[in-house]
């Protein structure tokens, strides 16, 4: 499965360089990190740094002709699945077949405590 997210022009993917902190961008950045770690083919394209991606993809190019409100836009295997917002954790879980807990807060690569009764 190929997952592509086309995003509005941004300075950096977490949005920390902007005037304020946007928790949504932090969430998305983390989800993508988690998916990459698990071997998924996921990409984020920022209009400011990778405009060529927007031009090369005829679907995306056509979509933004009438305005940038469609961004962020998610494509799965080349088909648009969501416009104007990022996929929610639920949608992401459904799409990838991963448990929703994989994307939730407090999850992640926290070291698991293994208790062994054997000596």
């Amino acid at each position: 499965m190929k997952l592509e997210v086309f995003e509005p022009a941004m300075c950096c993917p977490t949005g920390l360089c902007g005037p304020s902190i946007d928790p949504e961008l932090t969430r998305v950045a983390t989800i993508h990190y988690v998916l990459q770690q698990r071997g998924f083919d996921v990409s984020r394209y920022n209009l400011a740094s990778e405009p060529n991606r927007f031009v090369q993809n005829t679907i995306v190019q056509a979509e933004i002709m009438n305005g940038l409100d469609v961004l962020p836009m998610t494509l799965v295997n080349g088909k648009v699945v969501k416009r104007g917002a990022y996929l929610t954790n639920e949608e992401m879980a459904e799409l990838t077949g991963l448990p929703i807990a994989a994307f939730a807060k407090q999850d992640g690569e926290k070291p698991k405590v293994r208790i062994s009764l054997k000596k």
Partner: protein
Amino acid sequence: MKPFDFQAMDPTRYVFLTGKGGVGKTSTASNLALTLANRGKHILLVSTDPASNLQDVFEMELDETPRLVTGTTLEIANFDPEQAAKQYMERMVGPYRGVLPDVAIQSMEEQLSGACTVEIAAFDQFTELLTSKVARERYDHVIFDTAPTGHTLRLLTLPSAWDEFLETNTTGASCLGPLAGLTDKQVQYKQAVETLTDANETTLLLVARPEKSTLVEAARAATELRAIGIERMQLVINGVVESSEGTDRYTKRFIERQQQALDDLPDGVVDLETFTLPYAYENLVGISALQRFVSREPVAISDARYDTSRYESVDQLVDELEADGPSVIMTMGKGGVGKTTLASLLAVALHERGHAVHLTTTDPAAHVALTIGADVSETFTVDAIDPKAEIEKYRTDVFREAGDLNEEQRMMIEEDLRSPCTEEIAVFRAFADQVAKAKDRFVVIDTAPTGHTLLLLDATESYHRELERSTGVVPEAVRTLLPKLRDPKQTHVIITTLPEATPVYEAERLTADLQRAEIQPFAWVVNQSFTPLDVTSKLLVAKVASETTWLERVSNNPRPTILSWQEQLPVGYSALSQLIKEEVR
């Protein structure tokens, strides 16, 4: 301490000059470059200051392409990071014009016009020259007349900071994103760092005047640069007057003050090899003036004196400042023009008239606390915007706003917080907070040197635009900032300058930039003028004569105000309060 002998200099291939604005970096760099060229060496002199005055010294229009100074083997160029950023933006955006919709193009341009891009573009230009094989073959020496110290430090610390950044950036989340193919540049950046820290290749000249504040600044720079591995440093003290120059009250005091500063060199520079340069009896503008200075030719001295009747006193200026009620007062100008003293003076004057006042600074190199000391009372508070502390504060804010985070999220955010843009953002937020305080009291802000100030205002501008579509949490202080800065009743910008060439040109450029941001200066203050004083020595008569051109020029601006040279630097509340009384006309 020995006289700096331009003729005997045998410098390394790369020479950097740094120091507080107005200490004579450009003159010293120009003199050095010209002397070496006179010996038949091929020299490139480059300014990397966004607000350079190299073109004024050589009376030539300059850009990033080196131009030959007629009749010499000296080439000069002006690297303007803002210009470079624009070119960079055009390279990025240009190919997509007419391909992507206009709204997409505009949105790209907005993102690429931020402080990030300027920083990246400046850095890129700078390392390109430092690592260029062509430049190595063509020039025997490359001399960098760098920006005021705050900016210089950033520029010079960048190579190692970014170097580390590249190595440790594992998530790909960073402000370096806009620079396409950055990893290709890694070799170049590494090489730049090596050259900078190689004592056989690079000399750093710390330039100061025989004045405490510029020496403290040089010491601070020396300490920071030593920390990033620059070893070969020398101190050049500009404008030293011989004790035989005169015995009248002001001249004696002038020389005494210089001597005190020289006797009491701060820790960071006391061990450095130190050179002195004599006082220049004329403005070092034009090649012939530079040549006269280098060869120590005597200069004819005029006894002209400017009639200051068109000027206001500081007291009159305070009358007008208080007329609109509590406001934000910003003293702006290049470093070394006395912004701190003026800001402190205005703050004290307003407080003496019964107003509540908050005095603060955004200048990373400022000394408000040093001038006034701690808070005086509930109605007179003092603080400073310290970039390091602000980054820490911003960091805490970021993690609080982000809520509970897992390890991955935390890592990701840490990466972005390490980016060079974070300081700009953090300082900007603190600046906005300070401005927002001006509700029930006057807030007097002693701003950073020009280049930095412009970036700040630039940031203000793009923030303002960005806010319109941001989904994040926008602090109230940030939202109301730009409208407040533009309202002449709420904000009073006071352009601060000295009656000398560089500071006046500088102030004019600053004013033009402010006007582009739709901010109109309220007044111009000429600081440290000898013209109102009764002077007799050759030294001070020459100084008074040299002031005429600049006082005349400044008098065409709104509310020209003059502040005379002080025998004692007003340090502390009572000294400032006393000075106000003396300045009443």
